[in-house]
């Protein structure tokens, strides 16, 4: 037998996992996500028409409300969770993980690569959607009496990008641990996170959500505007910017904790054990 090459290190294995996972996602899963965003663009288009006709809503408010409520709380979380869970849990579900786990590379490297791939897809899709939405609203100069506010696009693009990465980490954790990760993701997003994020400002539990740090990022990014704040967070009693804290740090901690647990589970779990079947 010929000598085989030295086995790849952690970084090389993670890189290969990113490359192949991206290839698979682009081939397979992306069409559903893109369809959802096309629906959003259409909605924004008609929203712009309605706002222009009513004459009461400004472009700033229209963009922020649609970007937050549709992109920030619905499409971005769900597309990031969907792609992340499919990338991590898909091979476990259809048992093709066996081909990957047979290779002389650490399982956490494979998982890290899958998370990076899912994050890249989710970030590109959600930031592109924010740009398209901004373009749709910006295309109506009548909605911007004070001129275009590019800082809004910057704020929301960053918020959506950071949120996508964090939701993909949650997806990696759920995908590695649970047999029905989408069900658990639904419980997390619709139930636990929504409840915790709407607790009192002083509640530390809010930091364990993704929704609340993202909301605080937007508060810090947009100009103080009580009317806009009311439109974005009707239940918020005290949306002052000095209470923002360190949302990036909170999201970073949450992301790392989720990834560490996911990697640990991935490395130890016997996914093919009859106990799981």
């Amino acid at each position: 037998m010929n000598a085989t090459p030295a086995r790849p290190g952690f970084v090389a294995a993670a890189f290969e996992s990113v490359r192949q996972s991206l290839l698979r996602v682009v081939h397979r899963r992306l069409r559903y996500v893109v369809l959802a965003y096309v629906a959003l663009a259409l909605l924004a288009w008609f929203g712009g028409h309605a706002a222009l006709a009513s004459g009461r809503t400004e472009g700033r408010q229209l963009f922020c409300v649609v970007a937050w409520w549709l992109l920030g709380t619905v499409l971005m979380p769900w597309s990031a969770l969907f792609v992340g869970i499919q990338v991590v849990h898909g091979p476990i579900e259809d048992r093709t993980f066996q081909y990957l786990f047979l290779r002389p590379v650490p399982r956490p490297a494979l998982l890290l690569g899958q998370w990076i791939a899912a994050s890249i897809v989710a970030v590109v899709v959600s930031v592109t959607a924010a740009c398209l939405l901004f373009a749709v609203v910006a295309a109506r100069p009548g909605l911007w009496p004070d001129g275009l506010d590019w800082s809004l696009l910057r704020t929301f693009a960053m918020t959506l990008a950071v949120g996508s990465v964090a939701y993909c980490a949650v997806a990696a954790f759920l995908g590695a641990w649970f047999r029905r990760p989408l069900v658990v993701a639904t419980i997390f997003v619709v139930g636990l996170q929504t409840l915790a994020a709407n607790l009192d400002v002083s509640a530390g539990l809010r930091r364990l959500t993704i929704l609340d740090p993202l909301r605080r990022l937007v508060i810090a990014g947009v100009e103080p505007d009580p009317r806009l704040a009311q439109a974005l967070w009707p239940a918020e009693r005290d949306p002052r910017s000095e209470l923002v804290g360190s949302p990036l740090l909170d999201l970073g901690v949450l992301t790392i904790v989720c990834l560490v647990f996911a990697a640990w589970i991935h490395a130890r779990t016997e996914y093919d054990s009859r106990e799981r079947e």
Partner: protein
Amino acid sequence: MTESGVSPDDPLLAFDRVTKWYGHVAALTDVSFRVGREIVGLVGRNGVGKSTLMKLSAGLLRPSQGNVRVCGLAASSAGARRVVGFSPDVERLFEELTAVEFVAWMLRLHGWSMRAARDRSREALSDLGLAPNMERRVREFSKGMRQRVRLAQALAHLPRLVLLDEPMTGLDPVVRGEFADTIRALPGRGVGVLVSSHVLPELESFVDRVVLVHQGRLLAEGRVADLRERVPSRPHRIRLRSSTPRDLAARVVTWSQVRGVDVRGDTVDVDVVAEPGFYEALTELGFAWPGAIHEIVPLDDDLASVFGYLVR
């Protein structure tokens, strides 16, 4: 030791008193055997622990007790995974990739460069007769083609131990023959093979030894002929060809070792209760009655029959 840390003297696969529990259920109990540079068939009914044994060998599962070692290394170690090729009994592949992309990806995870991985994957797929289709997506492949892709990914990285879980499933007879030829050539290159199959006659045609598993325990191991010798008291069917079959049957049926006879054309199928004594009597008959027996054919010396007797 070689550069991979593998000693050439170690058995390629060694199970040492391995037990595997799934919760309160013992899937394997106290199993020990070795595989060297040979082809070993793993035989057992569905659900007796064959796939568990394969996955333990591949390092996908860890034993609850005992040790599984590949070339002297723990089966779940990265060093062992370098030298093992496994074709699992999993229907799906990475459907959206082409056959070349899929095999090359697996090679990349073994440390092959991009170009070398693609070249080697083309070579491995061509060796298995997939050259005309290897740039097509796997989702367009038939069952037989998928099976060959599975074998290609198991062989492409030049492993020292190849594990094949039900590799004949879904293959037509011609491809089965080619498949068997491919596997038969491996020990000549220093590769050990453990292959499970429920198509026992085919398995028998190319394995050197068999390991029989039943209800999670190792029932027996060895060459098929040797195993048959271990069960001398089992009933046995023998076909005698004769120009006077009725007369022959009338003589033979009176022997105490014979339970019954069945005459069809020029043949007499004899149900033998106890082999010792029967062949001596048959030899004496042959001397006393020249020309009465033209041919003696054992009907159940095959692997399936031996396995059936052992299980009973």
